[in-house]
């Protein structure tokens, strides 16, 4: 049903993504799909990495860790962004196309007042991506 599952991850808050990660791994096992973990980083130093190159290697380590933990095939895909606070939606949308994923599994918060002002990344992707999108509530 699905052959490639994209899982957007925020490495700064990886610990809080547990439900989405477990869910994605379960689906990957069920359908024999490959998972690609997608991370978006700024080019300036941040809390996760000092340079995009360092971020890339941390993201690859993360994918390898998930692969070992869940027994799945996993790769990683980094997107550099000039202004990640704003361009996250477009960066993720582009990543769906670039990775050729047919399902996106991502963590999403419960809708609240702020969603009327700033639309969440999950709802944006589900509206605009060609792939199926599954939002896992935290």
């Amino acid at each position, binding site marked *: 049903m699905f052959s490639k599952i994209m899982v957007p991850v925020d490495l700064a808050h990886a610990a809080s993504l547990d439900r989405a990660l477990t869910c994605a791994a379960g689906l990957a096992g069920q359908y024999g799909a490959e998972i690609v973990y997608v991370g978006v980083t*700024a080019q*300036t130093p941040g*809390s996760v990495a*000092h340079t995009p190159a360092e971020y890339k290697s941390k993201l690859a380590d993360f994918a390898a860790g998930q692969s070992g933990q869940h027994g799945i095939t996993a790769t990683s895909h980094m997107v550099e962004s*000039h202004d*990640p*606070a*704003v361009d996250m939606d477009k960066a993720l949308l582009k990543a769906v196309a670039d990775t050729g994923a047919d399902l996106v599994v991502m963590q999403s918060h419960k809708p609240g007042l702020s969603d009327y002002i700033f639309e969440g990344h999950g709802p944006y992707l589900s509206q605009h991506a060609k792939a199926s999108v599954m939002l896992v509530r935290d």
Partner: protein
Amino acid sequence: MADETVNQGIPAPEGASDIIETDYEIGQDNIETRIGPFRLDIHNPVFVVSAVMVVLFVGLALIAPEWSRDTFLAIRNYVKSQFDWFFLMSANLFVVFALILIVTPWGSVRLGGSEARPDYSYPAWFAMLFAAGMGIGLMFFGVLEPVYYFGTPWGDQPLGGELGIVDGVVADAAQVEAARQMAMAATIFHWGLHPWAIYAIVALALALFSYNKGLPLTLRSAFYPLLGERVWGFWGNAIDTIAAFATLFGLATSLGFGATQVASGLTEVFGSGSAEDGTRNFMGFLWGNADASNDSSVLLVLIIAFITAIALISVVRGLDGGVKVLSEINMGLAALLLVFVFIAGPSIAILGDFFGGLAAYAREIVPLSNPVGREDTGFLHGWTTFYWAWWISWSPFVGMFIARVSRGRTVREFVVCVLLIPSLVCVFWMATFGGTAISQVIAGATDSGVFQNVIAAYKPEISLFAMLGELPLASITSVLAVVLVIIFFVTSSDSGSLVIDTITAGGKVDAPVSQRIFWCIFEGAVAAVLLLGAAGTAGLDSLQAMVISTGLFFTAVLLVMCFAIFRGLMTERREMK
């Protein structure tokens, strides 16, 4: 194999040329929380202290307007007159240092490491650094400054020939030519190499320590070579707080004064009524009357709200979708106006001002930048030191912004494009706008609009429109000029909000969008509150004086940055040809 660095007689990098090893994790001092529906990710204590300081100073300017104006103006004048030598010598050092970087092997160090490549094209990059750097000043001073120097004796001792307008007739041709050249030389001096070198130093220090050394994108990072790990503590907090504070007040007071220029432009172009009767107005809001006491501050607040609203849209759309797009529109329109004035104005005389101005600049740069034994203290303190303090107090903002968009450039490319090319563009701008206006003064003498609004009466906000008024298609170009002034303010306001947000988030560029919205509205609100207060523009005056006084502090900061750049480049890999 002998490596290139040996061939060039420069020792190989000492120590690690990669990121600086520090236990400090970016964002470790940050507070991540929620206020209502809004997420926050702010540096403790930089965010809170700078916001509270802004509120306190605004309160002070409102409660005790006379006292605060007198005090801050006194501080500013003291700084300008007592530290003139410090400003001038430091600025000279920055120019020399930047020029040296171009010709030494350090010029081939690439910002972001040897693998990095620039993301922005030259036009986009150039548009952004120019719009943030001095766009608005060019609109305000392009006519004013050359004409003022041309037509008035400067300060105590005129440096060049005085323009002796006697009974409406301009003095002899040789004297006029000398005055014209000196006017261009002095203007170019204030808008050429020195300001851009100041910006280049800050931007280069920040870019180097952020992209190559892995430290957060805030002012304090450039102090790492000097302070080491202490930079994360009190001193670093103090530097960042003062930078955020100076940037916010610099933007807010400029916005306040800019609103008066926009109001004057709008009334000039679209207004009705008579200034003598006190009925001159723009859409019912009184403005531009002989007795200015009834002029509408509501109009100013509406203009500020309008500019802030557009800036808000821009910051929410982000760096690529908002700031870059607006900067490009801005530069396109500015180029249009420049080409129009060049063609419609006296093109040959403008070319003469460009080349003659450059030659006079080359001849006069040493006497003008020498602080010792000057007799023209009025010019020295009133213009040069004022400008140096102003550029320098503005430099944390502009430098941070330039750094943000310059990854992937080599140091040489960076300095050429941030120092030499903008300087040349400024010279051409000043030659076109100033040269046209000077030609109008010579042709029309006391009847020319420029003479009446710059020399006979000092109305700086009208000067540009007076010059355009004597060219063809004035009704179209004046509208274009008003639009340009507005967009230049928007591009300062939106890039400034991004910069303050980054500083107050401890160097994180991915802090929640609501924070930059806060800073953008805060800037507009500070400007509006100051204008609506009983003191009117006196409140703006006093706080702008205070901002300019911070130039003294930041001059010392910039000197440290030169040292930091030197240390930083010593330990970088130079690119192999």
